[in-house]
Each structure stands twice: as C-alpha cells, then as structure tokens.
C-alpha cells in the first residue's frame, strides 16, 4: 500500500469551499508524481457536495462528523485531523491558506512534528521531494523552500492552483462519528460583514485609494464591483483615514491577493500596496497621474479622472452583461 498524501478540506455552511477542490487537485497531482495515494479529510456536520470530489481524482474521503463540529473548533478539528494523519501514516498534508487553514495547519504540525510551509503559490516535485515557492515580505520577494521533516505540511493560496478535472476510478466517503469532541476552544457564533465578498477569496477585486477623495464616493467602486460580481478593496491610506474597514485593505499590512482581475481606482501604488496585489493575473489602473507607479504593474491603464471613468465603465459592463 502506497503511503498517503492528504488534502485537508474546508467546509462552511454545509458545503465544501472552492479552495477545497484546489487542495484536492494539488494532492492528486503530487500523489501521481511521488507515487503516493491521495485521500482527503474533512471535519464538519452535514456536507452536501462531498461527491463532487470524485471529479478531481480523489479516491477516498474521511468525514469526521458531529453536529457540534458544523462550526470551527481549533481544538476538536486539530484532534481529528492529527489523529487521522497519524493513523493513516500520512507523509504530506495540504491545507488551504484560509483563515481556518492558517489557524489549523500549525497546530496539526506540532502534533505530527511536521515542518510547515504556508501560502504556497507553486509546489514542484524535484528529486522525489516537494519544493515550494512562497511569497515573503508580502510578495516583494519569493523563496523556494523544502522541508527537512519526515512529515510535511503545505498550505496553498486560494485561486492560484486551478482544479483539474480527473474522474476518480473509485470513490468512497467514510463517515467517522466523533464522540465528545474537545470544544475547549470553539466558535460560538459568526458575525457576517456587510460586504458581499471577501478580497482574499474574490476572483475580481475593485479597489479604491485616496484618489476617491472621500468615503462618500466609494459607491462608485461598489457599483462597479456589483456588476462584476467583485469584492471591494482599499489602499492603506483610505483604511487609515477611516473611510473603509481594515478587512478590505490590500497590501503589506492588509491582505495579499491574487485575483484574475484587479482594478485599482485612484491608487498611486505605494510599494506596500503593490506588494499585496502585483501577483494578480490582470491589473487595470485608473488614475489621473500618468506617472503613478501603479501604471508600471498595470496591464491596461486609463490616465484620467476616476469620477468620469468609473460610471462609464460600470455602464459599459452592464451593457455587456445584459
């Protein structure tokens, strides 16, 4: 029996998150290159879309189930995943680099005496070992690293590894009921924020900076985000000024993002902001100052007035979508 590589999946509100399929796909690809057997593990209560994993080549998923585990509990989730990894003798675990993954992966690492590389943007097999590439200094530099521990843990940045469709040759779900989960630390409720989408997960981000001139003008950003199904982002300057909440901040002391499309409006492009968004696939800059550094990383730019261009862009996209 080949040794195992495990995809640790994340569920929220009864379904697996998109990034879970990215973890699954990464694990299947690594398993083929390393001659390991790919499995998945998830902790939660009801999960409706577990069968979808069979589209990504996963043969087996272990579902640790208890109604008290519908919400995240660091203690109970760590117990379940660490003991499952020990039991199955897993050599590699791949977590999503989400709020849950970042909280959970290091805890499991301590239990397994495993090294951990966070926020990987590339995982390559070289000489039968995994070499991970991850950003440091918020993306101002990249490092290639490998782990010297026997068991290895990697977390992957959402939206970077595209899930590959490979039908599983066989597929089974092993439901494992959890008795008396350790709920010493537990989530008791969730306060949803007003924004519809989070910048860390969005495929398109429309971001505003000081050039928006005041919080009262951000409706222009929101309207464009709305027609694109995008998340609203912000520069540090406008967050520090109190125009926008910190959760929207993109950059070195905010979130580092890699969406397919990043539209920067009235953002000049300070180093710490560029670090957080320049790995976006396509960047559009709209800024009055044609010499602003943001144009150096933009694929397409309009060197004009955001107050004129934003409404026109929103209208044009509305036309396209209708």
């Amino acid at each position: 029996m080949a040794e195992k590589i495990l995809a640790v999946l994340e569920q929220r509100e009864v379904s697996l998150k998109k990034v879970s399929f990215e973890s699954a796909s990464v694990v299947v690809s690594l398993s083929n290159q390393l001659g390991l057997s790919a499995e998945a593990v998830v902790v939660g209560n009801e999960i409706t879309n577990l069968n979808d994993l069979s589209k990504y080549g996963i043969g087996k998923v272990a579902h640790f189930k208890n109604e008290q585990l519908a919400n995240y509990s660091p203690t109970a989730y760590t117990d379940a995943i660490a003991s499952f990894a020990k039991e199955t003798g897993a050599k590699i675990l791949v977590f999503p680099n989400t709020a849950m993954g970042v909280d959970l992966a290091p805890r499991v690492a301590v239990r397994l005496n495993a090294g951990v590389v966070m926020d990987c943007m590339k995982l390559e097999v070289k000489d039968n070992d995994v070499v991970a590439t991850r950003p440091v200094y918020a993306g101002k530099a990249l490092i290639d690293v490998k782990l010297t521990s026997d068991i290895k843990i990697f977390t992957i940045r959402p939206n970077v590894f595209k899930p590959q469709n490979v039908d599983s040759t066989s597929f089974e779900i092993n439901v494992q009921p959890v008795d008396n989960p350790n709920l010493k630390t537990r989530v008791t409720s969730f306060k949803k924020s007003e924004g519809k989408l989070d910048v860390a997960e969005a495929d398109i981000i429309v971001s505003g900076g000081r050039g928006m001139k005041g919080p009262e003008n951000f409706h222009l950003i929101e309207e464009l985000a709305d027609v694109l199904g995008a998340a609203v982002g912000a520069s540090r300057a406008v967050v520090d000024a109190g125009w926008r909440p910190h959760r929207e901040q993109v950059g070195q002391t905010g979130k580092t993002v890699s969406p397919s499309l990043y539209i920067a409006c009235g953002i000049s492009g300070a180093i710490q902001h560029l670090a957080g968004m320049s790995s976006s696939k396509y960047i559009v800059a709209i800024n009055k100052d044609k010499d602003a550094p943001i144009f150096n990383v933009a694929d397409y730019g309009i060197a004009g007035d955001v107050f004129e261009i934003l409404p026109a862009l929103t209208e044009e996209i509305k036309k396209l979508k209708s």
Partner: protein
Amino acid sequence: MKIAVCISQVPDTATRIKIGADHKSIDPTGVTFIINPYDEFAIEEALKTKEKIGGDSLVYVLSVGDDSVKETLRKALAMGADEAILLKDSNKKDSFGIAKALADEIKNLGCELVFMGKQSVDFDSGITGQLVAEMLGYNCVSVVVDFKLDGNKIIAEREIEGGREVVETELPAVITAQKGLNEPRYASLKGIMAAKKKTIAEKPANDFNGYTEILDMHLPPSKQPGRILGTDKSAVPELVRLLREEAKVI
C-alpha cells in the same frame, strides 16, 4: 498574572527589497528596521489587560534575534512593559524554531496569557502564535480584533473571510493580534526615559532551527508596463473589449 508579549523586528514596509549575495536572504544594507506593526497591537492589549486586572500583574516582552532587536524591545518597555528578554540567536528563519524558543521561555516564566502579532511582515507565515500554544498545551485564538477576559474565561472575535467568528475559550491562552484590536499608545517621555535605564535580560535561545531549508530567494518576475488606453471615458469601450477578448477575465 504574568503576561508575555512576543515581538519581532521587520524591515519598514516602505522598503524596496534587494536580494542578498547568498540568494537566500535580503540585503540589509540601508534597510530601516521597525517593530512588526501587528506586535504594537499585541503590546497594547497586554498593557490594557494588565491595567484592567491590576494587582501585581507583570508584562514580559520577549523576542528572538540578535543584538539589533534590543532597540525594538526598548520600544515595548517605553510603552509600558515591565521586563524585556532577548533570546539570542541570529540563525532562526523557521517559525517552528522561533516558536520553540519562545515556548520554552514562556514556560520558564510561567506566563498564563500570551499576546503576539498575527503575523510578522517579513516571512508572513502567521503561525508562530498557534505553534507556541500547541507546544505549551495552551488555548489559542488567532487574528483577534476583539478581546475580553473575564476571570478565566476569554471571549474573542477573530477575523475570517466574510466576517468575524466569536470564539470562547479560557486561560492559559495565546492571542494573536490583528489590526483593529485597539489603538496602540505612544510611549510617553517618562516611559522612554525609564526604558533607557532598564536592563534587557539576555539568554541563549535553544539551538533547534526548525524544518525549513531555504533553497533560493528571488524577486518576483517583473511585469511589463502595460498600455495606457487613453485619458478619458472614450477609452472605456476599448478597455472592456480587451478585458473580454484578450485577457478573458470578464
């Protein structure tokens, strides 16, 4: 109660990174080092907690690094921390190795409550707090934007995608601070003067360097500057066409 705050020193966020000659670290020439921004929230929360519970509570500030970190430790003393301890090491790059050194010292001091920034803005892993907690068998809430301690009981709010989780746990615990948790105080002149007189305790950190081997550090591929399509709204249809037909992102 004994409270620990773990801090680190990082390049100023306005720094333009140059890769060092070893191709495994940055070139520190001309780089200004500052206290990790998230650690300021951790220090503030520790001081607030001490003020609230009163009695003979003490705030210890800890860091792993070389002599240059003393300046940052002094800043924490100036803000109001009682004692500073430098765990001397110039080699640790791996969170696991750093966490082990911190956990050993926290155990040694007998701190029941530990604060640190949610991530250090250099290697950005965001895991040291969770590692320390797990090594000590402490509870842990990470990325905290609201913290309440009532006796032994902790109610904290942590930031996640799309909202905040309300988390309940109890002491002993490690809390990692996110921006928004509080407004860090400025050091008073009196604080700064007092900090100058304080001795920073120095101890060797343990020699476990963790599990990460850095093979190479490099700059991200530079982007070709793109096209400026125009200077007013007449460029909008062309922009939309390119996004749709060339970039295929909308």
